């Protein structure tokens, strides 16, 4: 069994700490608006300043996303985007970039369809550094989180303003990679975040959980199809 070894996320966080700066993560939807342009954007992200890339796996029913990412997802699907193609994009990206962490973000059904084991093998082969699967809470860890752990591939957990002291241990139990703090109660791109609130929340998280050393927050972006993330 070929497990994940690269640890690009860990290396990034160590570097950021050394450099005493936050990192910039950029979200794009794979195959939006089509494969060629999307791949071109993806390849240029690191030189444009992205410390980490979140590559969205298009899904027909992105329940937790706002209109901007819904539209991006639908454009991608219309142009022939698929999970298979997203993995091919990662492979192509990795031919020239072996350093920038790239995590896949999306919904479970395409992965379930693809076959969990098959997906993990192909994702690691392609050069994926982690998974953010919106509709897999800890209650469904057996689906993908535990299999991903078997392959040593980070499974990134989301916490929200509603994740209270009672809920947090459940969330953090099988978490790896980093903690994704959803800084607004709502869908992506609908409200501006209050930086102070996020800072406080992260401080609180750090107090209790040594594990937590970053936060990724969502914000609107004028360009429309991207989401800006900041690491504290």
């Amino acid at each position, binding site marked *: 069994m070929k497990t994940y070894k690269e640890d690009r996320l860990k290396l990034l966080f160590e570097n950021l700490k050394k450099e005493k700066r936050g990192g910039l993560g950029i979200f794009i939807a794979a195959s939006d608006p089509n494969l060629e342009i999307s791949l071109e954007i993806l390849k240029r992200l690191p030189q444009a300043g992205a410390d980490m890339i979140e590559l969205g796996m*298009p*899904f*027909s*029913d*992105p*329940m*937790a*996303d*706002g*209109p901007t990412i*819904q539209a991006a997802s*639908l454009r991608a*699907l219309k142009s022939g985007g*698929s*999970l*298979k193609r997203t993995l091919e994009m990662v492979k192509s990206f990795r031919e020239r970039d072996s350093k920038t962490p790239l995590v896949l973000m999306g*919904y*479970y*059904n*395409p*992965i*379930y*369809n*693809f076959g969990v084991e098959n997906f993990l093998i192909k994702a690691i082969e392609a050069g994926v550094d982690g998974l953010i699967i*919106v*509709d*897999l*809470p800890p*209650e*469904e860890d057996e689906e993908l989180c535990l299999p991903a752990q078997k392959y040593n591939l980070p499974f990134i*957990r*989301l*916490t*929200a303003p*509603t*994740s*209270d002291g009672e*809920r947090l241990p459940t*969330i953090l139990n099988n978490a790896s990679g980093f903690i994704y703090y*959803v800084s*607004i*109660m*709502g*869908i992506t791109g*609908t*409200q501006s975040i209050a930086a102070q609130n996020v800072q406080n929340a992260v401080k609180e998280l750090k107090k209790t959980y040594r594990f937590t050393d970053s936060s990724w927050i969502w914000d609107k972006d004028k360009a429309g199809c991207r989401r800006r993330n900041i690491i504290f």
Partner: protein
Amino acid sequence: MSTTNSPNTLREGPDENGHFGIFGGRYVAETLMPLVLDVEDAWTTAKSDPVFWSELEYYRKHYIGRPSPLYFASRLTDHFQGAKLYFKRDELNHTGAHKINNVMGQALIAQRMGKTKIIAETGAGQHGVATATACALFNLECEVFMGAEDVIRQKPNVDRMRLLGAKVHSVTSGSATLKDAMNEALRYWVSKADTHFYIIGTVAGPHPYPQMVRDFQCIIGEETKEQMFEAEGKLPDTLVACIGGGSNAIGLFHPFLDDDVEIIGVEAAGLGISTKQHAASLTGGRPGVLHGNRTYLLQNNDGQITEAHSISAGLDYPGIGPEHSWLFETGRIEYVSATDNEALEAFALCSKLEGIIPALEPSHALAYIKNIISSLPKDHIIVMNMCGRGDKDLEAVIPRLEEMDLL
């Protein structure tokens, strides 16, 4: 096929995590999880509280108008010259469909939780109307999400909702039908967690909804059992109900799951299963994860959800309740389908022979019954759930019946 140990009862599911076999579950974003867990807590408490059930019983009797009659459809029986056909008359409920059975239950739970605002999704508009009705009664604010396509197809119900004081959100994302309305309602709920309760209209969604909605709809089957003993002194031989999400069907079927009764669910075959223009998730789909649960879904090779088609807006959903998926795989229930045209013929026939204008949804059930009833013996008893009345469908149905020379 895998062999499973046959349990003593088929009625004890789901397990504590909301699974019916591999189906069901809680596949929602973390932002929704605390809300879903709160609903589960409230439901668990209410379920074992006699005060809750007696309160619901009061509204069932005095507001919904239960029990609904079990009616012997003598002219259709004569017409088909075969088995005896009974209708469970849930179209006579206040608001004209079975949906109110569930809504009253959930509205009471919402109030126990101290919620003052309600959201709901709706396809045909029946669930939206039922929800708006309960909200008017209980003085709750009501917002209903409805696909833009359905807003046009079901205008009378949109007007009813508005009249009842609800705000109708026309959803234009995706295919602008029921699944998109549900996406949008879930998105909205996340942002209104503190104040809003989401009344899901069918036996789908994250746990505990499939179980909770089922338990509220089971009154249909429980009454049927009692009424059938009164009328015929025995159990029925066959139960038939239409299935979109499957709440009216599970309501009729569930109390009979452990009995020696044949059970048939009828999905919407649209233009025909082979055309891909249908809404038959079990007949033409495969397992996947959507809207909080694992169940049979219409989807392409990449796991992208495909659009359902049915002349009936209430059946036009690419999924089905997870318990139906489980009952399908265990083989306890037979799932079949009826096309748009077959349903339209049944719609016309039932109106003319029984003086009952059925909704397009139960017309699918009657359409399937047409295929089997004549070959069954005269002492064979079929019960069909007449789960809604057809007034809402006239605009869509009349031109089609004229085309088909049935009017």
